[in-house]
């Protein structure tokens, strides 16, 4: 946005404050004091809880998680969940980028595959699970298939968009610069497409984790979600609460990791 000369020095402070409120800057500036209501709630919960079996106090959550850790089942479960997460995200990224590129490049492919992809996209992942279980069995593969099917879409859609814009820009530019095919990919296509893939992955990553947990909860494939389903079936309420907190921490860490990865790739964007 171009600051007009009309907005004089008097309003510059105002403008600065408002720019803080803009979407990009806002994320980092959520005031920490906003955590107070949650902290107070948890404190009250801790002090008054205990009698009601459905609402065990937070200290019980902690001790039940510590029990799981002592049994030695927590860390392997997290490891399994993370492993499926990484494998699925990589596969989803590859498939999503390739398919998105293809669909974005040609209008006819787009129209041909459109309804089929649309249908797959709106089929709830939860509904696919029983079917895949029946076809493949309770295996690691089941997790990966369902998760890829559910999390490929953000990447695919981002890539389709980028790929569309590419076909007009790059074609003329590459021809007039007489670039070799390799140069065309490295100097024009990759820099244009990479940020879109990264953006797609950023959206897909939380979805991916959710889907991994989803499959683990509904099937008996080992992982964090399976521990949760197990705790629920045995009415270990504090453990369920504790595992929810573990999942929150995990998703938070994954978000940070993906953000770092995104910043890392951003350094390779040419101006």
């Amino acid at each position, binding site marked *: *946005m171009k600051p007009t000369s009309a907005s004089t020095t008097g309003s510059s402070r*105002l*403008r600065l404050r*408002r*720019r803080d*409120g*803009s*979407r990009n800057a*806002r994320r980092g500036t*959520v*005031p*920490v*004091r*906003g*955590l*107070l*209501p*949650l902290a107070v709630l948890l404190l009250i919960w801790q002090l008054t809880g205990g009698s009601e079996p*459905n609402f065990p106090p937070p200290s019980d959550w902690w001790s039940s998680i510590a029990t799981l850790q002592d049994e030695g089942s927590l860390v392997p479960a997290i490891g399994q969940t993370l492993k499926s997460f990484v494998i699925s995200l990589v596969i989803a990224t590859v498939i999503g980028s390739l398919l998105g590129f293809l669909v974005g490049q040609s209008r*006819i492919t787009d*129209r*041909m595959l*459109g*309804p*089929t992809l*649309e*249908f*797959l996209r*709106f*089929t*709830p992942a*939860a*509904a*696919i*699970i*029983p*079917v895949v279980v*029946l*076809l493949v069995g309770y295996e690691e593969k089941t997790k990966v298939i369902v998760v890829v099917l559910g999390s490929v879409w953000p990447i695919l*859609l981002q890539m389709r968009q980028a790929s569309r814009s590419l076909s007009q820009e790059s074609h003329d530019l590459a021809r007039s610069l007489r670039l070799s095919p390799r140069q065309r990919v490295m100097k024009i296509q990759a820099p244009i497409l990479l940020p879109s893939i990264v953006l797609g992955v950023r959206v897909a990553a*939380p979805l991916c984790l*959710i*889907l991994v*947990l*989803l499959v683990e*909860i*509904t099937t008996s494939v080992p992982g964090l*979600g399976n521990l*949760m*389903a197990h705790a*629920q079936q045995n*009415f270990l*309420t504090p453990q*369920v609460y504790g*595992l*929810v907190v573990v*999942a*929150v921490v995990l*998703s*938070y860490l994954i978000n940070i990791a993906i953000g770092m990865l995104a910043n890392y790739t951003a350094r390779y964007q040419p101006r």
Partner: protein
Amino acid sequence: MSATLTPDATRAVPRSRRLPALRANWIGLSTALALLLLWQLLDATKVLNFTYLPAPSEILSAAKGLWQEGTLQHNLAHTLEVAVLGWALAAVIGAASGFLLALVPVLGDWVLASCEVMRAIPGVTLAPLSVLLFGFSLQMELVLVVYVSLWPVFMAAYVGAHSRDPRRADVARSLRMGRTAQVLKMVAPEAAAELFVSLRLALAVALNLAVLAEIIGNPDGIGAGLTQAQSALQPGKMFAYVIVVGLLGVILNWLLSAAFRTLLPGVAANLDRAEP
């Protein structure tokens, strides 16, 4: 409302006003049909050889059977009811609280971080918890659906109402608009596009969570039908349910888009160009 119409958007309106049905994608539909035929063919020639993969014809007859029993309609109605009701509740609660926090900065400062933490809870992990708290009931399903599909709408309302163009405020001041007029004529239309995208997302989430809740334990609905068919080893019925619920998702999304186009053509046209 006209405040949101950039010249570009106004030009794009007539195209988007055409009913989507008139622009049916025949190539795409015939491709889908061809894929189904291929599947049938591969199955008939035993190239696709999974023990439990039914041919499309089997799926169709299974669906017909379910329809005649009346279970398909029953389950479909249940899932539809839960998903739509949950979605509507989530939309109202999410939009109202998002706007409130954005328009009352003090409140936002003191509450938003807590909301961010609550939002970070992966929705599906609440399913086992919800089963413990509410048992296998409609309430359990609804709570789960509402809680999870609330957050996209909340964030969109908050961000949409929060990130106004600074020049708009100057315009409002020079037009001497009151607080209410500003909210109605500037903030709401500005947030509308963002809100709509989130509503679409929330609808998909709601449908997903409804099916999940039914799979985990509710005796009604498409998810329950799926698990019953699974334990009875009836892949034809399972695929029938999956296809029905997929189509339901497509149709709901299409209806929402159509409603949005009719209600707010300007914003919708802007959005169409941004993400088709």
